[in-house]
């Protein structure tokens, strides 16, 4: 069978020996139909509805009648708080890439080897990822409770002589780092597991060959391991960025975007305008903008990484 690479990187094979070319396509369509219907109904249709509502001043109750065109979008980009939400989003993305992923990689390199108890360590580091976001948020709310009689962290700090108990989630300067710690704690396991799996796919022979050539550990990691993991790293980065753009439950439960919007992210901003202020037209506009940002990023990112794979 001949293989024809397509523009978007997908490879489609033509079954030129099939006596029933039409039936072949029909089978394909039929199998895809349930998924297609499901996605159209639950994904595409709501997005289109959302886009529709974003052009109205709509309270969320009753029909949408007050058409205002792109007013919502204009208001959106002029709002300081939305810009702050975007900034916070970028903060999370940048620090996730700078701290979370390297940490996960380090853990993977250490635990990926044949060290005693590696199954235990892997389980322990992966466990936070298994917890639901809601449980995680509530757990950390208790840890971060500023009252030394009730908060785990402040209770410990209280006994250390030169440290003062802080209001972790109530101080506008500390709240984003505090939330970031929780995010790292939760997702490091996932990335670590991804890297461990990737490491296991590296053939032993290459490592042994390198050792024979007299390479030391840092060189091994830098010149052999990491380049061979590039596919896994690309996936990991993609998941991390997309996840950071969409983080919601953790932030909402811990701080609701507060205090005074210090920990605002796009999703909490959207939620507040939609379901607390009942300005659903505006909330829909925020949702559309979020979608466009994520979509743009996805397309650009996948284009870049796919092209590289081609040349490889």
């Amino acid at each position, binding site marked *: 069978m001949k293989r024809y690479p397509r523009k978007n990187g997908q490879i489609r094979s033509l079954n030129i020996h099939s006596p029933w070319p039409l039936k072949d396509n029909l089978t394909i369509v039929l199998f895809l139909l349930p998924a297609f219907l499901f996605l159209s109904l639950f994904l595409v249709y709501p997005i289109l509805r959302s886009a529709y509502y974003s052009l109205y001043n709509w309270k969320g109750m009753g029909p949408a009648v007050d058409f205002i065109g792109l007013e919502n979008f204009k208001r959106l980009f002029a709002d300081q708080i939305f810009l702050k939400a975007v900034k916070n989003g970028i903060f999370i993305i940048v620090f996730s890439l700078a701290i979370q992923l390297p940490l996960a990689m380090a853990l993977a390199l250490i635990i990926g080897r044949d060290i005693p108890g590696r199954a235990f360590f892997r389980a322990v580091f992966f466990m936070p990822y298994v917890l639901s976001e809601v449980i995680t948020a509530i757990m950390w709310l208790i840890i971060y409770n500023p009252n030394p009689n009730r908060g785990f962290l402040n209770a410990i700090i209280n006994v250390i002589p030169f440290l003062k108990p802080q209001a972790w989630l109530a101080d506008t300067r500390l709240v984003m780092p505090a939330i970031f710690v929780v995010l790292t704690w939760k997702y490091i396991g996932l990335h670590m597991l991804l890297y461990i799996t990737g490491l296991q796919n590296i053939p032993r022979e290459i490592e042994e060959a390198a050792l024979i050539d007299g390479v030391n550990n840092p060189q091994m990691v830098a010149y052999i391991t990491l380049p061979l993991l590039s596919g896994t790293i690309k996936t990991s980065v993609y998941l991390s960025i997309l996840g950071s753009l969409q983080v919601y439950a953790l932030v909402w439960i811990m701080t609701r975007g507060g205090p005074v919007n210090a920990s605002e992210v796009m999703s909490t901003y959207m939620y507040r305008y939609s379901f607390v*202020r009942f300005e659903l037209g505006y909330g829909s506009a925020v949702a559309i903008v979020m979608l466009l940002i994520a979509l743009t990023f996805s397309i650009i990112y996948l284009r870049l990484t796919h092209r590289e794979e081609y040349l490889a």
Partner: protein
Amino acid sequence: MKKVIFLILLTGIILLSGIWFTLCGGAEQVTINWWHIQTETEHRNLWQSLAEQYMAKNPNVKIEITVMENENFKAKLTTVMQSGEVPDLFQSWGGGTMNQQVEAGLLKDITSYLDKDGWRETFSEGALGVYAYKGRNYGVPRDMGMVGFWYNKDLFAKAGISNPPATWSEFLEAIKKLKAAGITPIALGEGDKWPGAFYWEYLAVRIGGEEAFIKAASREGSFTDPAFVAAGEKLLELVTTEPFQLGFLGATWADEATLMGNGEAGMDLMGQWAPGSFRENSIDGKGLGDKAGWFKFPMVEGGAGHPNDALGGGNGFVVGKNAPEETVDFLKFISSVESQIAQANIGLSVPVVNGAEVGLTDPMLKLVQKGAAEAGYFQLYYDQYLPPATGSVVNDAVQGLFAGTLTPQQAAQMIEDSAARELKK
């Protein structure tokens, strides 16, 4: 052949008798969906027992109760309203939010029921009015109280404060004394935003009086009028003395109640439900007990308001659009004098039905009830009076004042901008 005929006849008889029974045999089974927010054990048990009493007397009615915490209830109600499938009977604070629900056609008009058999006259007029819109009624109140300062008498005595403060300067003095005694003067859950809004709204009530608010809300005036800016300035005076607990900006109402309930703070500006919440959130389950005292929000020297003016609100139930007839009957049942007395006994409600005040056993709640009754100007919480969009902005703006990220002028402007947009109709 005979078998077939026999089977057909049998099916026919079964079908016919089924139809017969559904049409005439006894009243049909009716289900009432009731959503309330009384998560405190004693309170939710009272509702449960009232429902059971009603169901015993009316076997064809089934009452399904859903209990949710305040914020969760608001969130869940929102999603349910989108689909138009509102519960048959649910918690409401009246005011602007209820008005929007009426505009969206989600509530049942019960004016005619109230006019029958003198049901209307059993209620205190002012309280009932909160659940009316454009002359039609959509629900009834069960509780109407006011916001005031709940304080710990023991801690006040420890700090050497002999009498609760009556003026703003006395209030700041009391805070100084509490701090000197090593006591956290005020418990505040500003993370939820509405507890802090009480302070600003009361200052506006004291400084501007009824006139200032009526003018601003009716759009003859503005929320940037001097009274509102001055309220912000006075609030900053308070905030700079740092009277709140560590991390107050992120704390919830539950945290606030926990502090007071465990005797870790001097005072708490809160509504009539406070004692129950202090009890529920305390480690020993007893709350403040007889250590609790209550005083009205201090008068601001030179303000246009009156020391008896009250900020407050109440709780009530509204009826959903598709509710069965029996719902209103059940509502009448739980609004009876006996029910109200029972509610007053456990501190669930400050009664609104005439004659039920005798049920109030808590001396502090009696003070609250008296205070609400003698108020010349009674202001419903801003975030209930105004439509949700603007009410939400009030809460956000005040949080900015507490955090020091907004000046009094900016906060007032934020509120004015939202009011201009939402109230223009």
